[in-house]
């Protein structure tokens, strides 16, 4: 992380050409692609087969890279029935270790404070009951605890100081704050105010939050209201909703640039990506090169957003590269089918 910060500082001062590297998962091909973007063109360097059952789709879903840059971690959504977390070396892109998690493990991140990995068990296709956040020590690849949260938790992201893990429960419409040190739920917040809906006594969130992203410098988190077509701003100091911003249809994943300037959200149902300068009123809406945009990650220098786009059926998945200042797609590269999880690895001069 320190290297990234240092490199970011100097990248502003000196205009060397930058090489960006990131990983993107193809959920229906059981592959992960390593992609390089040189500022002009994105190229798939390697397509890495993942999973262990040749004739079963195991569904690589979430990705994250260790703060050291030495390892990447992948959640495999499907198992018998539990999914798993696999640790890979960035040097060889070969698996090193694996541990079982809960049902349909999805997005995850590693806390800079504890060094632990927090992965939500999305349980996308299971019963409408609370699921959990798995806490894993990535050194020993041991699942330490499953912390119960809401129904269909998704979007595991860590506060900048590493102290809190945030996730949203898609079907129960809640924001959860987990204390990364005590491994307990610290606070919850219903996102469904004025939006309540109930079927036979079971709460079904009309907001259907699918992602939460902390602001890098301000006490705020931004939530994708996939069902209510909005971005919800929550002030974490006040622990209340402070803004609701209408978007296009189906905002799904969110990232915020390290400088706090840009919020980028995939609009899954619109085949578009929203790029919003947070201090301006109107966001830009950018068309993707295929349908069903899914994941997004912004380069640490706050210049580019890399967006995975699933496609449909036999379409290849792809990654669109968006120049944030220009608010346009500047490159695109095909990867495996149903491109989803994405994680940034490194910038090289």
């Amino acid at each position, binding site marked *: 992380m320190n290297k990234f910060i240092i490199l970011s500082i100097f990248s502003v001062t000196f205009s060397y050409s930058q090489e960006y590297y990131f990983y993107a998962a193809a959920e229906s091909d059981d592959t992960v692609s390593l992609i390089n973007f040189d500022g002009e063109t994105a190229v798939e360097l390697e397509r890495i*087969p993942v999973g*262990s059952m*040749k004739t079963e*789709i195991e569904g690589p879903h979430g990705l994250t890279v260790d703060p050291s840059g030495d390892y990447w971690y992948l959640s495999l959504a499907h198992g018998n029935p539990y999914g798993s977390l696999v640790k890979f070396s960035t040097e060889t892109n070969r698996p090193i270790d694996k541990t079982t998690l809960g049902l349909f493990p999805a997005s995850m991140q590693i806390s800079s404070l504890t060094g632990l990995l927090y992965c939500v068990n999305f349980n996308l296709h299971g019963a409408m009951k609370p699921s959990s956040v798995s806490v894993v020590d990535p050194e020993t690849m041991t699942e330490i*605890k499953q912390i119960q949260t809401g129904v269909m938790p998704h979007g595991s992201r860590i506060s900048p100081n590493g102290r809190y893990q945030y996730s949203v429960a898609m079907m129960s419409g809640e924001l959860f704050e987990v204390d990364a040190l*005590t491994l307990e739920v610290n606070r919850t917040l219903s996102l469904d105010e004025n939006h309540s809906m109930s079927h036979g006594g079971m709460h079904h969130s009309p907001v259907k939050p699918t992602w939460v992203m902390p602001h890098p410098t301000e006490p705020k988190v931004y939530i994708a209201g996939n069902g209510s077509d909005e971005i919800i701003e929550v002030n974490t100091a006040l622990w209340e909703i402070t803004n609701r911003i209408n978007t296009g249809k189906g905002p799904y994943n969110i990232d915020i640039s390290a400088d706090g300037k840009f919020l980028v959200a995939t609009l899954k149902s619109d085949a578009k990506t929203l790029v919003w300068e947070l201090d301006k009123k109107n966001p830009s809406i950018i068309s993707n090169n295929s349908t069903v945009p899914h994941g997004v990650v912004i380069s640490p220098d706050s210049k580019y957003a890399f967006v995975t786009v699933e496609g449909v059926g036999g379409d290849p998945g792809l990654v669109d590269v968006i120049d944030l200042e220009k608010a346009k797609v500047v490159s695109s590269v095909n990867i495996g089918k149903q491109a989803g999880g994405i994680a940034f690895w490194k910038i090289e001069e």
Partner: protein
Amino acid sequence: MKKTLLNLIISALILTTTSMYSQELIVKSNLENLTMRVGETFKPTSFAEDLEGQKTMCQAVIYYNKKGVFSTAKAVTVDRDKGTIRANEPGTHEIVALCIGQEGQRLSRTFPVQVDFPKAKEIKITLTSAKVYEGSYIPLEFEVVDEMNFTRKNEFFQLSSGSENIQIDAFNNVKAVSPGKAILSASFDDISTTLTIDVLSNPINKLELKASLDVSRTGDVVNYEAVGYDINGNQLEGLPFTYTFSGKAIDKSNNASGLIMNDGRFVADVIGDYMISASLGTSSASRPLKVVGRGVEREVLKVGKGVVSDKHTSDFWVFEGVDGRDYAVTGTWGADGTSFFWDVTDPANIKKIDSVKVDARTVNDVKVSQDGRISVIGREGASDRKNGIIILDVSNPYDVKILSEYTKNLTGGVHNVFIDNDHVYALSGSQRYFVINIEDPKNPVEVGMFEVGKEGQSIHDVWIEDGIAYSSNWRDGVYLVDVGNGIADGSPSNPVAFANYDYATGAHHATFPFKSKSTGKFYTVLGDEIFPDGVDENNPNITAGFLHFVDFSDLDNPVEVAKYELPGQGSHNYWIEDDVLYVAMYGGGVRIVDISGDLLGDLYRQGREIGYIMTGTSNGYIPNATMAWGAQLYKGYVFYSDWNNGLGSSKVSELKPDNSKANQYINKTPIID
């Protein structure tokens, strides 16, 4: 120059940053050398210490059992509220202390914690035979019950005896030497007990060994019965005979091998001369057995192929259409949601006649109703993640039409389906299956559901025959569920489980019920699916696992009696008809195996293979790479699908294999017909 200066600045900054975290620290804890007893709790305290012994307090310490949160980690559990650990099971366990430093850097150390068995409170020796005869080894079991009421079997007791009529060796084998009372003393953990053994004199004056056959084929189960007579010629009952065998294979480079059971059943694997013996103490009787080749090998001829060269192929189904012609449907895997329809009326001339493309990446399973009118295909990887099933009108397979889509409760992907009497049995998210009435195929209605009901339940397949659903549930094994048979008052809307069998590997992937025509016995044949080395896209994949033959003649006491395991290749889908098994063994092609007669032991080693087909083709998706997926006998032809190659047909010939081209140095062994 500017660049050099910059690099120096960067290097200096990085070095400074790194050195802040490079102090050599180690976690110190009172967990070190900790020994606990089962049931005890302990409050660990930990801190960090540098090389000079300077102590640094942690911002927080997180303790965890290195085996994780699941069942095996219950040996030592962590109570985070109380900050304690509790020892629940004996053994050496690993506890990790993760220290979060004041500045956020993490430091961890693993501590082995010894948990001792509680003190024994009772020990038992049990004689497992009703009678002990002179000259026999005495069958004993040893058991310890400790203060926490844990029971441990077969611990090593200190045995001794003052009785001269029994002998004890260094491994606790106890031999009855001569008749009379014997006292066996045992001690463990300062507790002692004794067992009085009544060693009987050998009553046998004459011993006879009866056999069901004296000449058998490999794989034939021969039944032996030892009968002892006393001095008056009276038959003795209830004698605990021991059965053994020896033998010599015809092939000098091979061993005579087989399996003999305590009840006197014997099966030979290889051709040769065997000697079967029964003994009791010093009395024994032997009987020779000549074992000849099974002689079931036949030529298997490839007849036709329907190659799919641009996608992986998954499952298939061959059926008779309403027009009396013969058709097949195949699915595709990791592709674009296409299913293909084929005219296979002439198996030598398989024709692709139609296709259906749906929103999916994988159509793993395809099935057709008994009347040939309806096909159901399962979806995985749908773009809207609703997956479910698609119901097709295949009354004209040249013009297949989509009738309906059904996704309720099936959004997790439908990996396998079955159609039986207007009901679809569809897997849901690999955890349960739903029963859907399709009497009106445009308006399917869910009527029932079955799940094992255990935490972590998982399912891979379901197959229906005679109103019984056989579900394959990985570690929970096969469940036999009444969905209309009547055996347990079940119905499609009220599935009732009435029998179950599981096995240790937990790799149970498919089931085929098998009523043996030759013996009348009822088996379930349970298939594994195992990829022991994971996935390698660039090389042939290693597969493992085999078929387990479970005798279900007694539903309450199923017994696994035999296996079919092809060395180096794992099992996938299979079909059984007329006591012949047709099994896709991935890289080993389709194997055709004689499973007639009683089944016991290792069927592959018994020379039961009739023949095989390597299912690769030169123009497959991956050329010449055999990856057999499934097989089906249909109107005398063996149809199969191959993951890399599509659909194929073959025929088992009446002819024996042509050996004229065989290596002259291969040692031919005798067979009889």
